[in-house]
């Protein structure tokens, strides 16, 4: 894997984690159950922490700017997140479905990247494996529980329908088309193999819609809105210490 491809991959990973962590952190204080509020906030912190770990690699090993600048000073068109991670915080059903689809993907990725020839990435992948294991257990448990009443299953099914094309969009081939040894198509295969039985067993239908790719397209309004909010204070004076 050449350096350009590696940088591109790490930006995809970091931006996804930062934006989904940002969205999930918006639940802090208003989740449906007090205990869940706490659990969900921890996971948001974990995700933002993972983003920081990836940006740190980009800075220390791949010649990019320091993490705070990468997060708070890049323009929307420079971000490489999938649209899924920037979707606004709406109903709890969409939040849990996003968490499930996203964490399943991360679960699969981390298993692959733990063997990555680029050691700093492999190291981080191994280090955050435990946190990710809890995230996936959390998401899977919620998916199963919310399939058990007609009302909740219907809400969840609607959310699955809305998010599915964006979830497939997570597996967009990298710009440099050199994602070897772990190409996006096979990561998606493993992801489908992981989530399909869980969805089916819980009583959900797996949609047949196709992917919407967005990583390299013009920034979505969601991404623009999110970054404007996130970078607001830092950009008052990017040279100041905050």
């Amino acid at each position, binding site marked *: 894997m050449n350096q350009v491809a590696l940088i591109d991959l790490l930006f995809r990973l970091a931006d996804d984690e930062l934006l989904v962590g940002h969205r999930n952190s918006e639940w*802090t*204080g208003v989740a*449906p*159950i007090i205990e869940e509020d706490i659990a969900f906030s921890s996971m948001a912190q974990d995700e*933002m922490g993972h983003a920081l770990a990836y940006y740190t690699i980009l800075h220390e090993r791949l010649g990019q700017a320091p993490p*705070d600048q990468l997060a708070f000073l890049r323009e929307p068109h420079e971000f490489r997140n999938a649209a899924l991670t920037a979707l606004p915080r709406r109903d709890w059903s969409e939040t849990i479905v996003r968490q499930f689809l996203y964490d399943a993907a991360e679960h699969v990725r981390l298993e692959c990247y733990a063997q990555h020839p680029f050691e700093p990435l492999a190291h981080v992948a191994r280090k955050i494996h435990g946190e990710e294991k809890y995230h996936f257990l959390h998401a899977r448990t919620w998916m199963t529980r919310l399939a058990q009443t007609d009302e909740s299953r219907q809400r969840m099914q609607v959310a699955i329908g809305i998010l599915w094309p964006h979830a497939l969009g997570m597996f967009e081939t990298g710009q440099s088309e050199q994602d070897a040894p772990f190409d996006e198509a096979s990561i998606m295969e493993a992801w489908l193999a992981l989530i399909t039985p869980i969805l089916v067993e819980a009583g959900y239908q797996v949609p047949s819609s196709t992917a919407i790719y967005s990583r390299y397209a013009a920034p979505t309004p969601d991404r623009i809105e999110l970054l404007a909010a996130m970078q607001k*204070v830092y950009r008052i*004076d990017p040279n100041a210490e905050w």
Partner: protein
Amino acid sequence: MSVLPLNYYSTVEDDGRSEEEKLLAFEAKINRGEKIEPTDWMPERYRKQVMRMVQNHGNSEIVGALPEREWIPHAPTFKRKLALTAKVQDEVGHAQLLYRVVETLGKPREVIIEELLNGTAKYSNVFNYAPETWADVGVIAWLIDAAAIIRQLLLREGSYGPYSRALKRICYEESFHLKHGYDICVTLALGTSTQREMLQDALNRWWEPILGFFGPPDNDSVHTSELMRWRVKLKTNDAIRQEFLDQYVPKIWELGLTLPDPKLCKDEQTGVWHYTEPDWDEFKRVIQGHGPCNAKRIAVRRMAHEDGEWVRRALAAAEHNESIPVH
């Protein structure tokens, strides 16, 4: 012996003692420095007072999370973003612990939440003001949490066991909040002129609500002395306010900041701080629901509660009783 519901208030069966004997035994226990546990006999006034106080505290944590959570999306730098999220999360965690304490006194969580939403239960007035800039986040975390710590370290020595235990952990976590807030304030104070101005402006706006945090001066009522005797209250509001001024005004001045009260000074002879009393009529008006953000705070809580209703309904209906094996 009979099976007793653990950690739940229950009317202890008539053991033949008169009310007076029970009260004497109860007060003797407190005088010996022992804690009152949920299953102990307690005077109804004690139970109601502790319940009101802890419920108010729990509500203050969960409502107190709201002004700060508005700034989570805007926190500059990774460190601030993570720390602010963790701090707000802690406040929610404190509400969880405190609501459990209220439950030990016989009020279910559903009722606690309902009373918050319909306005019959109160929370700390200070959260009815709006955080307008990033500096407000620092001032709130530093000084309001400092005020809370001073009060809670005292209450930790109070007589009700479950509250005292919860406060141990709460005080520990609040000390992180205070450091996080102090760090933000110091960074702004040492920063650019814009940052300093932002901080001074925040301090000017928050000073009076912060002084009001401790409540109006206690009148010397029989009520107060009973609460002190039962170790529900440990010091008067004014005494706690003095402690706060003594510990924090010098730290604020040390940063080259000013406070918007020309009367503020310490009488070095007596050690007593002089200050302008907050406008207590305004304080009462805000408590009664007419502050700048009362309606907004409750509206957000109500929305969170109503949006989550289908989720709780689904979990309640789902029948699941697997258990994790205990080794």
